[in-house]
């Protein structure tokens, strides 16, 4: 099975180790993984800011980079949501292109969804020392039904204990460019999320979307919390040894 890894621009720039963790998880599960070198961004920042052209440009690029793969996997519910829910509607006048994009979208998966739904992974050789509280990022949850997948996988991680917060499904306030345009609301929402997460006394706040994690970590650190870890679910699932990163 040939899998194309769509790293996403945020992981590429901010946290390459999440990309390597994803790679390791896919390879350990027996996939032949390739990383198309020309990939960049899914186009969501522009698309959600009202620039449809951003979506179109990046959809064409995505198609060129990934159409040859059996599956495409991204460590992000939000970018996968963009591809799955929106690429198909960007070219209403070009049915052939629409068709190709729809076909590719259906082969595109969020990481934990792919591991559980497609690969049916039931054993991970990984360990984590401590308690975890899991934040359900909005696009993954509501566009892709990612809810049980990360939890099911974390159960296979030796030592990881899940302590649910009271509102894991409440938005953390990231929302892409929203977090800058309406920063004060975003900060308040991040605050609510941090309080809810901290109340569980978990050692780590874990989620499946780096944008949300940066938002949550940014607020935590500004509030003076230097100890609570904020991790991507791929990092937890892949375990601490990530080779050279």
């Amino acid at each position, binding site marked *: 099975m040939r899998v194309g890894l769509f790293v996403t621009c945020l992981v590429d720039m901010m946290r390459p180790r999440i990309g390597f963790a994803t790679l390791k998880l896919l390879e350990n599960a027996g996939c032949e993984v390739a990383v198309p070198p020309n990939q960049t961004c899914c186009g969501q920042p522009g698309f959600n800011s009202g620039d449809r052209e951003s979506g179109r440009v990046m959809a064409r690029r995505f198609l060129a980079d990934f159409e040859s793969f059996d599956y495409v996997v991204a460590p992000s519910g939000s970018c996968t949501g963009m591809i799955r829910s929106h690429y198909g509607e960007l070219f209403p006048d070009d049915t052939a292109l629409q068709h190709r994009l729809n076909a590719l979208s259906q082969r595109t998966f969020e990481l934990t969804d792919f591991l559980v739904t497609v690969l049916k992974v039931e054993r991970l050789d990984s360990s984590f020392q401590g308690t975890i509280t899991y934040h359900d990022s909005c696009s993954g949850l509501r566009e892709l039904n990612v809810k049980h997948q990360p939890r099911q996988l974390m159960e296979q991680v030796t030592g990881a204990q899940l302590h649910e917060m009271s509102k894991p499904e409440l938005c953390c306030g990231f929302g892409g460019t929203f977090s*800058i345009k309406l920063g004060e609301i975003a900060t308040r929402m991040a605050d609510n999320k941090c309080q809810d997460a901290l109340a569980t006394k978990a050692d780590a706040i874990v989620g499946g979307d780096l944008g949300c994690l940066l938002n949550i970590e940014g607020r935590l650190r500004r509030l003076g919390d230097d100890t609570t870890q904020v991790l991507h679910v791929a990092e937890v699932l892949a375990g601490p040894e990530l080779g050279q990163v």
Partner: protein
Amino acid sequence: MQLTSFSFKSNVRRKLIDPLLQRNMKRFGGRFVEARAAVMTEVDNLETIRVAAAAIRDRSLANLDSYLLAFEEQALARGSRVHWAETAQDVNRILIEIAQSNGVKKIVKSKSMVSEESGLNDAVEAAGIQAIETDLGEYILQLAHEPPSHIIAPAIHKSLEEVAALFSENHHTPRQTDIPALCREAREQLRPHFLSAEMGISGGNFLIAETGSVVIVTNEGNGRMVTTLPRIHVTITGIEKVLPTLNDFSVIVRLLTRSATGQSITNYVSMLTGPRQEGDLDGPEQSHIILVDSGRSRLLGTEMQKALRCIRCGACMNHCPVYQNIGGHAYGWVYPGPIGAILTPSYVGLKNALDLPQASTLCGACQVVCPVKIPLPELMRVLREKSFEQGLRPWHERLSIRLWRGVANRPHLYALMTQMGVRVLSLLGGKKKLLHHLPGLDGWTDGRDMPAPQGKTFRELYRKRRS
């Protein structure tokens, strides 16, 4: 109603640091959310009903002209008089004409959000007629000189203590301490008005085309008094509220009350079909229905038409994490929350409410609960597209979007720029790997640190690892 949507950001700033509002919003918190979730378990085919409800609303809107004419015909046949108001000003003019030609000095009102659109109360007062709100929430707000902050619970932003203080000050009575006592006090104040008013004004949740009836769904008895005691009853409602048949209503009402307050059914569901008929024991002598367009027909046939499906249950705002934090007043007009972020720019003009469609993380919590399946995030995105295309967004925002698009579509340039960028930011992050301030990104760094990048991009590291 006074429009302040154009200053959304400063409204928000004030609301976020208003301790009283913050406390009241926290208290109100998830009450409606929990009640809705609990009552929805009674409905074993919720999704099927939602699909049916959306289809009913779509059918009504697709043939709005014929259903409205059918409604008018039936309403006229039952003795009602139907008035068409193209603009908000027309609403006030028509209403005042009816009042003046009948020598009306006093009006009692039950809840009508549409009348807020045109600032009816002020216009009526200016014409020398007294208008008294009788819905408890609206009555409180009339005393406080404030607009509603929620479409079904207009005074949700006020605490018991605030209401008690307001009542004792205005009624010159000792301060009450519990809700039943406050309700009793309001009732005592309002009763003489019900009996002496010559006109009653109500909203209308739905118009039934096949019978010419106006349907009112409410929990307070004032609705019945306003519509039956005074000599003249006037319904003011939007043209989009029409439903073809009573059968259609029976589907929609199952969702409306459950989505709104989490009740299987409200205390009152009234169907008003014309004035008092021969042999009737009560009812008004005259029944008028003002059908308001005021921007609605502009949405027909466009991608925004789906917004007109709205049955005003309020679930989208109850579940909206933005609304939960800033309250309804920040939105600056009649309709707050996600549906307000769509209707306000559509009705008052995009440039007057430019930030509203941006006031969402597009988290989708609203869309999941909307009983008529309005794709609220999608409609906000459509309005964002209009703002972008019409050049209404700030130049630096448009520029950065275009720049990113250009860079992201040129992989080599992207590689070069991101590699340089992450190195610099990583260095600036220092030992703690945190950026406390980033020029141009104050929106972020005013309230949060930015965790610094690791220092090299994934693509760079991956290439090295391969070679």
